[in-house]
């Protein structure tokens, strides 16, 4: 029924330390947020972004060597600190999520977009 849907949760638990250490990258589609939370194993704290490339919706990777984000579809690059596109001047930016470790699980917060 319209108007009776519960509000989307403000936080989600995405993965454990062990899972992230093993996989190095975790993709998690959060249906309630209609967004893809992607976690990269980066020291000292994991990098947590919306994995949807603002160009056409492609899949973003973190390149440790250059410390940049790169889209798998068109190889556009983005700054891993502020999310702006480095390949072309573009309005859309990569969005980041704040996160914290809680009881061995990585908890990601919804309202952390810059």
């Amino acid at each position, binding site marked *: 029924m319209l108007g009776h849907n519960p509000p989307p949760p403000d936080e989600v638990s995405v993965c454990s330390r062990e899972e992230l250490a093993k996989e*190095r990258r975790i993709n998690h589609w959060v249906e309630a947020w209609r967004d893809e939370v992607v976690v990269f194993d980066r020291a000292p704290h994991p990098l947590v972004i919306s994995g949807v490339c603002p160009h056409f*919706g492609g899949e973003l*990777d973190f390149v440790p060597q250059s410390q940049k984000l*790169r889209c*798998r579809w*068109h190889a556009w690059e983005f700054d891993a600190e502020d999310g702006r596109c480095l390949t072309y001047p573009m309005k859309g930016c990569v969005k980041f999520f704040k996160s914290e470790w809680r009881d061995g699980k990585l908890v990601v917060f919804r309202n952390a977009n810059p």
Partner: protein
Amino acid sequence: MRILDFEFRRELANCSIAAGMWNYWDAEHVGVVHGAGYDDDKILFDDERMRVDLLVVRPPVFRFLKTFSWAIHQKHAENTFSNYTTMFGVPVLTTLAITEPAPDMIVSRSRYVFFLSSWRVMLAPVLRWLVPIWANKIWSEDLPLKLRRHRALKSGFKDFNGLPESIAERHASGPLKVPTRVPRLPGCPIDDKPVEYGFKTSGEMNGTPLETVYSERVIKPRSNRRPGPVRLQAEPGE
């Protein structure tokens, strides 16, 4: 003349005509996603109904046989188009039709017709073996793009902007649509033409041009090829 005819029919859930057609009209991904088969792709001309490309192709298995190819895409309707190209001097006509028999489900029918003449008739057995391999490879490389693009469009994604800020706006209203002329930003290497040309007209009389000056300039195209998939750096000792 010998004609080789291949037809592939594929059903795909969680996809739409818009996402399926976008995949064929987005030339920018060709050199990245299909980097093993295509070295480069330049758009020489495109509008809402037509696109002319210059491709650098590497066929499966015989990758050392790098060759240039023209490709002309002609859109017939929202869900159908033809592609005219050549491979090693063999004219190839491709027709593609995508239907949506149920919401979020498509049926894709692609037909490849090879026109073999002269000595190229000898290529028939090789093509009969190679074309299904090549078609399946391209299909599987494009599959994640179609599915992901569909999900993004259904989530209210706007090209060059991303997902809407508000979760309440993250749904598509009305049928999904994407322009056939896929937008690019200025400076995109895919728009680097090998020859830059222009027509200039000086003066007119009663609406008729008096003189038309044609000029051209050969330019060195930048490559579309980008680095391949990212490998996460292994920890020391792994």
